[in-house]
């Protein structure tokens, strides 16, 4: 059995106050897997953005709806699944926050930050089950910081 393999699940109701619980778990897992403080912070930040979107855009703040998050670490590879009970969306329609027409917008940077801090960010839409966000990161490479974008 691989001592490094880890699986944690957390399910929350759609309240912004609960975002932090999921973020804390992300940071904890990264630290346990040997990522440095900064690297762990940025993974936590990506998770915060993903859960915030699930609560706000997916579940539209309906506290009867839940956000399901799983964390898996295997051979220093972290996979995070965040699923909501919303209607889904078309990722191709998401505007580029770096475009001059968007730069002064007050929103639209969440997915961009996730992509900045994680190696892979993908959305899928299992029928009738809302949005499923998968983010992956190799915790063994030292690239946690924002700088190397």
């Amino acid at each position, binding site marked *: 059995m691989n001592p490094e393999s880890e699986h944690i699940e957390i399910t929350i109701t759609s309240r912004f106050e609960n975002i932090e619980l999921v973020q804390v778990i992300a940071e904890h897992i990264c630290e346990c897997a040997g990522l440095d403080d900064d690297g762990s*912070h940025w993974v936590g930040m990506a998770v915060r*953005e993903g859960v*915030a979107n699930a609560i706000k855009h997916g579940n539209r703040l309906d506290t009867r709806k839940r956000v399901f998050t799983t964390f898996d670490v295997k051979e220093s590879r972290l996979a995070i699944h965040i699923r909501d009970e919303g209607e889904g969306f078309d990722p191709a329609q998401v505007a580029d926050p770096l475009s001059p027409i968007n730069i*002064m917008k007050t929103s639209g940077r*969440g997915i*961009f*930050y996730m992509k900045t801090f994680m190696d892979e960010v993908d959305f899928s839409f299992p029928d009738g089950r809302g949005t499923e966000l998968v983010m992956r990161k190799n915790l063994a490479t030292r690239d946690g910081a924002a*700088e190397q974008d």
Partner: protein
Amino acid sequence: MKTTSRNVDGIEILSLQGKITIGSGDVQLRDLIAQCMSDGKNNILLDMSGVSTIDSSGIGELVGSFTTVTNRGGRLKLLHLPGKVTDLLQVTQLITVFEVHDDEAKAVASFK
């Protein structure tokens, strides 16, 4: 988020402490800036040294604050930006939008 405010030479210095995140600090920041505008305080220096966490909503609110103040003919500048906030402004190419200071006296003088 907690805030304290001081007025130095007509410049409103707002110290933001804690989290500027979705559903809490972001809304407070918007209200705070709206209050300054209605009080006629158009020159604002945001002291960010006490900000522990900021997310994309907080960053968006900073941008919104900048726009609100600028549209009123005022100016909004940033003081003591924590490294992680700088990083977030940098990757979204917002760092050049804001005037950022490390020295309060110089920051205040810069409004002259």
